[in-house]
């Protein structure tokens, strides 16, 4: 057990039109500092729910188990407190914020997190400098900074914007929720490079994906197979290759 991200027997449910539906049925997962883990699993296995529960989405009710991050009870924190602590969720489909200027949003977020971490806030000029360097690195146009957050962004642009936020907020744990869905190969590379560029002994990532493809670019230390709200198998990077070739059947049967 590490002192970084430790999930123990985590159970969660969602209210589906008045009837509670259990989704996570006892997740055990340990991600040590500096490691990249992948979670793969069929649709409806609870992968996205796990990412939402870890980042503090309130639609889900945690009914059992625990999750600690850097020794703190993660589940007791508000989403913004988790962000300040270093958790970053890259959304599968980021929501649009009409009328909210992207640059302004980024600066507000960066400064809120810096404030919470006891760092000095960035003034407009140094922020702009930082963000320009990042957008250039990500081959994003400056024009995207002037638009409203995610409004009218193409799928690829939204993902780039997520990576930009990740680079700016400097998380110690990035959760990528099927960030690769609907991405062309160039965009996929950009996402992967975004994650790889942050890789360090102090940075971990949890990559949730359907496809082996993304794991060609972000090579994980461990791969977990998730089904029906549980982790049913864990192994090294080779697990992804087996899944790619043979599908989930053998793991599902083994777990049954």
């Amino acid at each position, binding site marked *: 057990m590490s002192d970084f991200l430790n999930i123990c027997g985590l159970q969660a449910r969602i209210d589906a039109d008045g009837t509670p539906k259990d989704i996570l049925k006892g997740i055990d997962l340990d991600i040590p500092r500096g490691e990249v883990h992948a979670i793969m699993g069929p649709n409806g296995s609870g992968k996205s729910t796990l990412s939402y529960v870890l980042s503090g989405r309130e639609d889900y009710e945690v009914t059992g188990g625990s999750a600690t991050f850097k020794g703190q009870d993660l589940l007791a924190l508000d989403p*913004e407190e988790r962000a300040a602590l270093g958790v970053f969720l890259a959304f599968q489909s980021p929501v649009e914020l009409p009328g909210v200027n992207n640059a302004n949003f980024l600066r*507000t977020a960066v400064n809120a997190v810096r404030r919470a971490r006891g760092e000095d806030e960035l003034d407009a000029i140094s922020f702009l400098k930082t963000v320009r360097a990042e957008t250039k690195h990500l081959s994003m146009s400056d024009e995207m900074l002037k638009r409203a957050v995610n409004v009218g962004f193409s799928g690829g642009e939204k993902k780039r914007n997520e990576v930009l936020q990740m680079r700016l907020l400097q998380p110690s744990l990035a959760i990528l929720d099927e960030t690769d869905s609907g991405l062309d190969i160039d965009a996929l590379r950009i996402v992967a490079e975004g994650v790889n560029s942050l890789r360090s002994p102090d940075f971990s990532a949890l990559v949730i994906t359907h496809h082996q493809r993304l794991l060609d670019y972000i090579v994980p230390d461990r791969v977990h197979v998730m089904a029906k709200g549980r982790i049913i198998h864990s192994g090294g990077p080779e697990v992804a290759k087996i899944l790619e070739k043979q599908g989930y059947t053998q793991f599902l049967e083994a777990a049954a």
Partner: protein
Amino acid sequence: MPAVTETREAVEKLAKSSYEWGFETDIEMDIAPKGLNEDTVRLISERKREPAWMLEWRLKAFRSWLEMKEPDWAKLKHPPIDYQDAHYFAQPKKKPGPKSLDEVDPELLRTYAKLGIPLHEQALLAGVEPAEGERLPVAVDAVFDSVSVATTFRKTLEEAGVIFCPISDAIREHPDLVKQYLGSVVPVADNFFAALNSAVFTDGSFVYVPKGVRCPMELSTYFRINARNTGQFERTLIIVEERASVSYLEGCTAPQRDENQLHAAVVELIAMDDASIKYSTVQNWYPGDDEGRGGIYNFVTKRGICRGARSKISWTQVETGSAITWKYPSCVLAGEGSIGEFYSVAVTNNHQQADTGTKMIHLAPNTRSTIIAKTISAGHSDSTYRGLVRMQPKARNARNFTQCDSLLIGDQCGAHTVPYIESRNMTARVEHEATTSKISEDQLFYCRSRGLSQEDAVGLIVNGFCREVLKELPMEFAVEAQKLLQISLEGSVG
């Protein structure tokens, strides 16, 4: 759902945010006795050293008012107003004078500082020219309990031919202009509150921009109600001649008090051929406490006429204050090809009530109007957009576009949309859209997962919601308006 509960809690917390401008200025006042009758009207006219015709005009208004009934069609509830239980005249005892700073009470200067007038305030009021910079200077007329106490930059403006002065000075110094235009857009008996204002108005601003002159600076008025139990009735008259233009800013504050105070202003705008008037308001009168005690009753008549061809009148308002807002800044588009615009943000919280909107009356061909109204309701408040778009038979090829969006925060408030669309010309086109929704939990969560607090996230989303309107404000005001939205809903944009 817990997320909803939390939003509501956040909003309830916001509701408790205190009114930052709720201080009282300790200045000696000269106050008329309570009550309203012909003698009150005579006293006001006499104190203002007005010519006889003005007194007659006021008396005519007063007599019409006696015959009129308070309008009851708006979606507003309040205990009956006792018009006899207020002072109709109050002025600082020390003789105010715009010529020298020495004549301004130092308390007053401190008031300005506290108001955070977004200008180089002290320097301005002291008559010091600002350092060379890209920023346009702003001329200020401060109306303090309905008396103008300082009009800055009067001389610079005079050199450009622009008259900007308290309306009481204009009545004495430019009687022909005042006689010709006062009451020409809002007649004395236009409505109950306009008639009341016409009878008892004590000050306000007068602007005249001659042919071909672009007013060299933004003109700004600050209205403040200070004395207890005073009604404030200012009157503003702006005349812009052919090819001339002006941008006029109006800000309002009042101290925090338990009782309700009445405010009934009238603003008249007149635009000749190719003239343009931009009138911006940030209304931040005291809204009452979180139980709904106190606050200003704000019954305002604002109307502009585009008399000339291709003239343009643009109203922008950010209404965050007052216990009650009753206000419909309107445009009469009489000149061919003239343009009317109305951009509005109305925020209500606690027990505030707002019934506000506009009228666009298209009389001439090729006239165009745009209405963008954003309504945000929180707490136990109610907010109504009420608007009229009328295409008269001669309004060939006229166009209107209206967009009304309402945002509800919490389940104890109301948001209403009451548009009237009347067309008598087949070639005229009217388009109206309205939506009502709440702040989406997805948006809130997205912002919070990026480190923003709940309040900041609400503020950010609300400011985004209002962006189309806020961007119409002059820079100086836009900053203040955003700040006000933050305070009204305690979110911040950082």
